[in-house]
């Protein structure tokens, strides 16, 4: 009895614990791929049951963007670099040619769009266009809309549209606040509606 008391059970050596943990750590480090789940959200147009004639739209209210099979841009019948597209789209949307748009800061050129509500961007691509070029163009056009919405939102509510949207989407935002934000977002969206029409790719 006395003897047993004297030798305490030998301590387990924990020196190799770090090695084991390192091994596991390295395994997870190697296998981890941080997910890249972000992108450009779009809504496809529903299929029309039968051919309905589209409402007449004045030529000057359409901003045509053509992407050919060599990924070159033809904007309003002129060749353009991708880096100039954003500014061109902003100028077109913000033009306010008929003077009914008080918040537009464009040139009010009568030959360009009447007001942001009527302005339509038409994007057409070839079936040989690369997806990369298509996404770049989409990105620039979405950026143009965001730029204008941000500007207007900043002027009215002192916050960028993106921030408001993020706050609205955030599940942590309280219901009361969300209800408060919602009309703001709706209003900005009606001021600069995203009218981006896509033709089906040309076959040739």
């Amino acid at each position, binding site marked *: 009895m006395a003897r047993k008391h004297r030798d305490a059970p030998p301590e387990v050596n924990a020196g190799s614990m770090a090695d084991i943990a390192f091994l596991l750590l390295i395994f997870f480090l190697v296998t981890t791929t941080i997910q890249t789940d972000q*992108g450009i959200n779009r809504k496809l147009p529903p299929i029309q049951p039968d051919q309905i004639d589209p409402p007449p739209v004045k030529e000057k209210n359409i901003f045509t963007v053509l992407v050919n099979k060599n990924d070159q841009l033809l904007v309003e019948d002129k060749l353009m670099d991708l880096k100039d597209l954003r500014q061109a789209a902003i100028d077109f949307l913000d033009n306010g040619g008929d003077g009914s748009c008080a918040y537009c800061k464009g040139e009010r050129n009568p030959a360009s769009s009447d007001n942001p509500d009527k302005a339509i961007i038409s994007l057409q691509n070839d079936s040989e266009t690369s997806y990369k070029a298509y996404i770049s163009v989409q990105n620039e056009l979405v950026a143009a809309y965001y730029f204008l919405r941000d500007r207007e939102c900043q002027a009215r509510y002192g916050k960028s549209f993106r921030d408001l949207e993020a706050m609205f989407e955030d599940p942590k935002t309280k219901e009361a606040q969300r209800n408060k934000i919602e009309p703001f977002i709706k209003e900005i969206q009606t001021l600069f509606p995203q009218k981006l029409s896509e033709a089906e790719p040309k076959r040739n």
Partner: protein
Amino acid sequence: MSKFKKKKGGDVPAISTASLPDIVFMLLFFFMVATVLKDNDLLIQNSLPKADQVTKLEKKDRVMFIFAGKPHEKYRKKYGEGAKIQLNDRLSEVSDIKTFILAERASRNPELEKVLTTSLKVDKEVKMGLVGEIKQELRKMDALKINYTTTKGSVVD
């Protein structure tokens, strides 16, 4: 012989490494929690294009994925050189999208059906002809919410 023996030399005591495992375990747990194990094996090349006007994708239970791209080199013999689409873990034809969407819808919560988003993970080399066909199929199935999944970066480079 004095009771207060001078310490020999100025030996610095060894740093205890007893807390090292704790630190490593902490890192380990972080990576274990942050890891998302890939649930589908890609048979195709899939390098996504870059964009900077991106929004985060919603929760995973509201998203279905459609991949597209050229088959990996080891599958080229079997499937050819042309761009293909991948649904779940097989290469498929555009016409299979219909059944895929029906199956996806059936496997989700019914109330999520309206908010289901289709994430298009398309390789940047793919031609728009294929993407257009995919979009047309989705329109036919009334799956109108889509997300062009991209990596973050500037488009002008």
